[in-house]
């Protein structure tokens, strides 16, 4: 498989504060890679350098294909209140002829199950629906790489599960290459084909892990899968380097499993 994104010795310094301390990794075409790291370790900075919003202090980012899309954590602010949902999805497609724009927006809205809300304003929708609009907009753009910065951090648990499954489905159906930043270990294991674990600031790569789970995933069975639990513990331990030993992780995992089955069955 070819590499969609190559990051080589990427470093970024704000003033004299080193946020990223030299990262090297690749993302292959069609892959979904999760980046996990402690809060404030420079994950957003990494995404901003990859997306070209800031120029890195050192190192290289090379993207195959000309354009990428970003789903920002602050989805509410990234949608334009003066445009309808459909207008928002068409926003990046202005260079296309009108009919094609329409068609692409309608298609993307269907993927995320929002066809009925096309004429509404984004602020008339719930948080989860707004995030789906942002995802539809990114997908309609047909990006070579889709970047997501903690995309589901500010929605409730139920919506979060739905959105995670939505992401897995659309990226499988459309063969999208995705890089997701998250601070949620479970989410990274559930979503990812691969997980990049970052250290505390200045962020360095601690581990690059393959996720040994089948492509088809399910909120209940996958999360109770042996491999899932084992990998989750491993990532948790990696994130705790230098901190407390990860004795509680197994216990916490069991508790999680229980609360999860409650959420799903209710």
């Amino acid at each position: 498989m070819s590499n969609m994104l190559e990051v080589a010795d990427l470093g970024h310094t704000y003033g004299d504060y080193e946020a990223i301390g030299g990262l090297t990794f690749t993302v292959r075409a069609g892959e979904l890679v999760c980046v996990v790291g402690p809060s404030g370790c420079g994950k957003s900075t990494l995404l901003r350098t990859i997306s070209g919003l800031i120029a890195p202090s050192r190192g290289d980012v090379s993207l195959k294909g000309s354009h990428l899309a970003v789903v920002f954590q602050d989805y509410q602010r990234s949608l334009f209140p003066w445009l309808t949902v459909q207008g928002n999805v068409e926003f990046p497609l202005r260079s296309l002829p009108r009919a094609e724009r329409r068609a692409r927006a309608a298609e993307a809205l269907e993927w995320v199950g929002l066809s009925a809300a096309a004429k509404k304003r984004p602020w008339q929708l719930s948080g989860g629906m707004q995030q789906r609009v942002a995802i539809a907009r990114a997908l309609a753009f047909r990006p070579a790489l889709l970047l997501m910065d903690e995309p589901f951090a500010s929605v409730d648990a139920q919506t979060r599960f739905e959105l995670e499954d939505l992401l897995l489905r659309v990226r499988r159906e459309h063969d999208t290459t995705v890089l997701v930043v998250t601070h949620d270990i479970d989410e990274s294991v559930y979503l990812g084909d691969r997980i990049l674990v970052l250290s505390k600031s200045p962020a360095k790569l601690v581990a690059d892990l393959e996720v040994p789970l089948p492509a088809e995933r399910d909120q209940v069975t996958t999360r109770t899968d042996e491999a899932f639990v084992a990998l989750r513990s491993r990532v948790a331990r990696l994130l705790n380097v230098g901190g407390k030993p990860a004795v509680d992780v197994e216990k916490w995992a069991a508790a999680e499993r229980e609360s999860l089955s409650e959420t799903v069955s209710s």
Partner: protein
Amino acid sequence: MNKFFQRWTVFAGLIVVWQVFGMLAEDPFFPPPSDIVTAAWEWWVLEPENVTEHILPSISRLLSGWAIASVIGVALGLLLGRSDRAMEYAGPLLVFLRSIPPPALVPVFLLLFKGGTSMQLATIVFGVIWPVLLNTVDGARSVDVTKVDTSAVFQIPRYQWVLGVVLPAASPKIFAGLRVSLSLSLVLMVISELVGTDNGIGSQLMQAQREFDYTRMWAGIVLLGVLGYGLNTVLLAVERRALAWQPRSRDEQHA
């Protein structure tokens, strides 16, 4: 219906009080409203050429002056608002120009344009451009960073950035500026007609006052009030339509 009454009772009450006192006092400076209405009727309805010669030219001056100022103000404001460099250079100049009371420039424009419509337009434009310009600068600056980032990531063309993002984001502020400018336009329209011209509502006011025809003078003043109220109402209606997209919840109101 209730609201309508609430709004207008004080107004109607004042007119009644004025009518009673006007009739009792018989002071030529303060004629009762009924006399004023009669004067207005005689002046404008029985002599319709007064409308075409004075009222319509005044309104057209006011509106064209305001429109010119608005177009220049919005265009310049968007430019200055999105460029720190430009604002650094132009900022002090703007503050200085804005501090000049526009009526003080009437003699200058009088010399420059030898009176007439262009001098009146210049006075109005110079006087009313500031609220539009400064509000637009303010609005254009306040485009929220996530929207700026979103636009950058999608590499939208420049015209879409200006017309599709900055302009709508700034539009609530722009409309606030337009409203202030519109009422200022009325003021400056009158001031610019007080000298160097013999047509327009302002000049008619002066003439009535010189001829001691105070009822007519009052009729002119009332006409100006009605005009200001009407224009503001129309602009408010336009604004309500143009800004209908604004969320009605408290959060994200000015995003």
